[in-house]
C-alpha cells in the first residue's frame, strides 16, 4: 500500500464525527493535565483507561493517545511563566523561557513554544507515516553499548547547559551523578545510599527533584522581594504577545533541528523526551554564534527543546506500534489498552489493520492541529496569571507542587523530597550553581551505568564492544570531539591569563 492510499484511508477514518470528538476530548484532557505540574499523562491515561473499555477500539486509542501527546503542549506553560517544570523535559524550557517572562516576553515565549511543538510533532508524524517499519528495525540496532555512548555524548554536551563558571557546572553535573546513585543497583540488586528507607529503593523521584530545584527554589528566592507581581500588568498588550519577525527568524532553524533530534531519540525506546530536550538545547548553544545569550532569554533556547520533546513523544509511537515495545510507562498503558481491545501491535499491523493504523496516525496530526488552535487564544489568558500579586500566587504554586508530586506515587515522602531539593536549589541559586546540569547528571547517570554494565554483560566483559560497534564508536568519537572543542577555548583563556599576568578575572567563553 502506498502513502497516498494510506492517507486517504486515514483521513476518512479520522475525520468521522466520533473520531474527531474523542480526539478533541483526549487532547483537551492532555493539555489540562500537562498544565498542572506533576500530574501528567500517566495518571490521566490510567484513570481514563477503564472508561474506554466500552468504546470502539479506534476511538479509545485515539483518545488515550491524545492525552499522551496533548500533555506535552501544556507542560511548557508553567515552566515559562513560573519556572516550574511539570515534567523533566520541561526543565530545559525553564532555562530560557523563564528569563523571557522576567523580560515581559512571556506571551512571545508561549507563542513560539506552541508553534514549535506543532512543528516537532508534525515532523515526527511524517516519519511515522513514511518509515515506521524501517525505523522500528533501526531502533533494535540500538543496544546498550549505543545507548551508553549516546548518553556519554549527552553528558559531555551538558557543560553547555550552564551559564557562568564551567567549574560550577561540572560540580553540578557530578552532584547529579552522585544523587543518581541512590536506590537499588539494577545489576547486583543491592541497595545504595537508601539508609534503610524503603521509599528510596527506586531512587529519588525525578519530578520531585526537578520541581524542587526549579520551582520551589524560585519561590524561596522571590519571597523576600518587594516586587508585587512577576510582570507589570500594564505591559501586557496584544503586541507583547506576538513574536516579532526577528523572533521567528531565530526560532525556525532550531525548531527543525530540535524536531530531528527529538524524532531520532523518540524512536529509541530506552531514551525519552528529557534526553531529546537536553541534547537539542546543548546543540543549539554549541553551534550558536552568540552562546552568551542562552540562559538569558534566547528564543532558540525554547524553540529547540520544545520541538524536540514533542517530536520525541510522537516518534515514540514508532517502536510501540511496530515492535510492541513501549518506551515508557504511559506508552505501556496505551499498549495494554490496545491489547484489551484486541489489537496486537506488530510490524504487520500496517497491512493487517490499515484502517486502524492510518486512522490513528492521521488523528495524531489532527489532534496536534486542534492543540495549536486551542493554545493560541489561551496565551493571553495564561499570561494574566502573572498579574496575580506574588504573595497570593506562590501559595497557589506551592499547593499545585505538593498535589502534583504527591499524585505521582500517592506517597507523602515525595513531598518531603521536593522541600529538601527546594532548599538545596535555593542555595544553588544564591551561590550561582546551575540546576540544569545537575538534573542532566541525575537523569543520565543511572541510565549510563545500567547500559555500561549491561553492554559488558552482553560482550562478557570485553570493553572493545563500545568502539567496535559502529554506531557506538561514532557517538564516542563525537563525544571526544565536543570535549576537545570545549576544552580548547578554556585552555587558551588560561594561557592568555597567564600571559597577561594578573589581569581582570576573564570569563572563559564557555
Amino acid at each position, binding site marked *: 500500500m502506498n502513502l497516498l492510499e494510506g492517507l486517504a484511508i486515514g483521513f476518512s477514518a479520522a475525520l468521522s464525527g466520533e473520531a474527531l470528538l474523542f480526539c478533541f476530548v483526549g487532547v483537551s484532557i492532555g493539555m489540562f493535565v500537562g498544565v498542572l505540574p506533576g500530574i501528567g499523562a500517566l495518571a490521566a*491515561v490510567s484513570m481514563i483507561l477503564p472508561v474506554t473499555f466500552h468504546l470502539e477500539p479506534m476511538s479509545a486509542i485515539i483518545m488515550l493517545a491524545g492525552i499522551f501527546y496533548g500533555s506535552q503542549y501544556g507542560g511548557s506553560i508553567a515552566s515559562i511563566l513560573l519556572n516550574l517544570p511539570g515534567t523533566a523535559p520541561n526543565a530545559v524550557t525553564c532555562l530560557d523561557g523563564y528569563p523571557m517572562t522576567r523580560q515581559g516576553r512571556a506571551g512571545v515565549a508561549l507563542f513560539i513554544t506552541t508553534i514549535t511543538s506543532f512543528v516537532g510533532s508534525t515532523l515526527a508524524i511524517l516519519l511515522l507515516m513514511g518509515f515506521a517499519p524501517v525505523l522500528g528495525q533501526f531502533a533494535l540496532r540500538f543496544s546498550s553499548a549505543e545507548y551508553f555512548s549516546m548518553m556519554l555524548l549527552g553528558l559531555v554536551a551538558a557543560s553547555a547547559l550552564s551559564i557562568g563558571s564551567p567549574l560550577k557546572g561540572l560540580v553540578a553535573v557530578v552532584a547529579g551523578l552522585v544523587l543518581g546513585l541512590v536506590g537499588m543497583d539494577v*545489576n547486583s*540488586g543491592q541497595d545504595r545510599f537508601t539508609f534503610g528507607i524503603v521509599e528510596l529503593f527506586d531512587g529519588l523521584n525525578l519530578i520531585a527533584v526537578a520541581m524542587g530545584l526549579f520551582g520551589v527554589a524560585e519561590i524561596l528566592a522571590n519571597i523576600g522581594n518587594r516586587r508585587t507581581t512577576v510582570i507589570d500588568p500594564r505591559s501586557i498588550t496584544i503586541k507583547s504577545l506576538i513574536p516579532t519577525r526577528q523572533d521567528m527568524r531565530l526560532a525556525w532553524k532550531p525548531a527543525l533541528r530540535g524536531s530531528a533530534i527529538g524524532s531520532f531519540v523518540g524512536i529509541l525506546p530506552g531514551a525519552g523526551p528529557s534526553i531529546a530536550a537536553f541534547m537539542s538545547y546543548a546543540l543549539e548553544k554549541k553551534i550558536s554564534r552568540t552562546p552568551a545569550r542562552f540562559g538569558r532569554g534566547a528564543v532558540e533556547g525554547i524553540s529547540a527543546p520544545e520541538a524536540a520533546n514533542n517530536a520525541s513523544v510522537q516518534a515514540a509511537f514508532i517502536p510501540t506500534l511496530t515492535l*510492541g515495545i513501549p518506551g515508557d510507562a504511559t506508552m505501556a498503558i496505551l499498549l495494554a489498552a490496545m491489547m484489551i481491545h484486541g489489537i496486537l501491535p506488530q510490524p504487520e499491523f500496517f497491512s493487517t489493520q490499515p484502517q486502524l493504523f492510518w486512522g490513528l496516525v492521521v488523528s495524531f496530526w489532527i489532534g496536534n492541529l486542534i492543540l495549536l488552535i486551542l493554545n493560541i487564544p489561551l496565551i493571553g489568558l495564561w499570561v494574566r496569571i502573572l498579574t496575580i500579586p506574588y504573595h497570593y500566587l506562590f501559595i497557589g504554586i506551592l499547593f499545585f507542587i505538593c498535589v502534583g508530586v504527591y499524585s505521582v506515587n500517592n506517597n507523602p515522602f515525595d513531598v518531603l523530597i521536593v522541600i529538601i531539593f527546594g532548599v538545596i536549589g535555593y542555595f544553588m541559586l544564591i551561590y550561582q550553581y546551575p540546576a540544569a546540569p545537575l538534573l542532566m547528571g541525575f537523569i543520565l547517570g543511572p541510565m549510563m551505568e545500567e547500559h555500561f554494565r549491561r553492554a559488558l554483560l552482553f560482550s562478557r566483559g570485553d570493553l572493545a564492544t563500545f568502539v567496535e560497534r559502529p554506531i557506538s564508536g561514532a557517538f564516542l568519537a563525537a563525544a571526544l570531539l565536543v570535549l576537545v572543542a570545549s576544552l580548547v577555548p578554556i585552555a587558551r583563556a588560561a594561557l592568555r591569563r597567564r600571559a597577561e599576568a594578573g589581569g581582570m578575572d576573564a570569563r572563559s567563553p564557555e
Partner: protein
Amino acid sequence: MNSILKVALAAAAVTGIAAGTAVAQDHYPSRPITFIVPYSPGATDTLARTVAEVMSEELGVPIVVESKPGAGGTVGAREVATSDPDGYTALFAFASVHTVGPHQRDLGYDFDDLQPVARVATGPNLLAARVGTPFATLDELIAYAQENPGVVSFGTAGTGGLSHLHGEAFSRAAGIELFHIPFQGVTPAIAAALAGDIDLVIGMASSILPQDEAGKLVALAQFGEERASVVPQLPTFRDAGVDASLPTLIGMWVPAGTPEDAVEKLSGALKAALETDQIRDYGNTVLVEFSYADTGAFAGQLATDNESNRAILEELGLAQ
C-alpha cells in the same frame, strides 16, 4: 425494690440495644473497602479494577482501588501490613511482596504480618528464546545448555525479582547453568531478545505471546504447575521431565489479625467474581490465567514458596 428493678430493666434494655448495634456494625462489609495495588498504573491495576468491580457487586459495598507504587511493590504491601486489621484494607499484588521482598531487606513488615485471602491468578509466566538460537524446544535448550554451561543468557525484569528466582530455580532443576542479565522491567528485556542481545527472556504471557505470534520470539515453556488455558500449546517443565513448578502467583492479602469472617467473605466474593463470564473473557483477552485457591490452599502454597525463595536468595547472596 421497684426502682432497682426498673434500673436493671433499663440497663438490660440499653445493653441489648448496644449489643444489637454491635451486631449491626459487625456485619461485614458495611462500608467501602480499599484495595491497594502496589505498582504503577498498568496491567495489574487494571486487572484489580476489573475484578474489584465484580466483587463489589457481590459484597454490596464499593471497592476503591488505589495504586501505591514503590520498591517493587513493598511500599504498598507495607501500608497494608501495618493498617488496621478490620478487613477494609486489602492488598492485590504479586506474591513476591510476600515471599521475596522480606528476605532481601528490612521492609517494616515480615511474612507473618500479611494474612493471605485467596489466590487470584497463576500467571502464566513464559520462557521464550530469541529467533535464531540453536534450540527450538525446551528439550533442545536443556541439551544445548548442558553441553555449553554458562553460554546461554537469560534476561529478566531485575535481579532478585520473581522471574530471576524462577529462572535460577529452573536451571538448578534442569541441571544447567544459564547467564543472568537483569533489566529494569520486562519490556527492555524483550527488546534485547528481539535485537538478539540475549538468548532467553522470562515474562508474563501478556508480553511474550504477542511477540511469539508475530514470529519475533519463540515461546519454549510455561512455568506453572499445569498448562494454562490461555497457552495450552506450551509444555510445562514437568512435561519435559524437569522437576520444577514455579507459577507466578497473583493474590489478595489483608493485615494479620483480620477477623476470620471478613477473610472468608472476601475470599468468597473473589471466588464468585472469578467464575463470572465477564472475568473469564477478560482473562482470555489480557492472557491472564485466573485460578482461584481458597485461603488455606493459598497460604500453604505461599509458605512453600517462601522457603524455596529464601533458599535461592541465600545461595545467590541476595538475602539480607
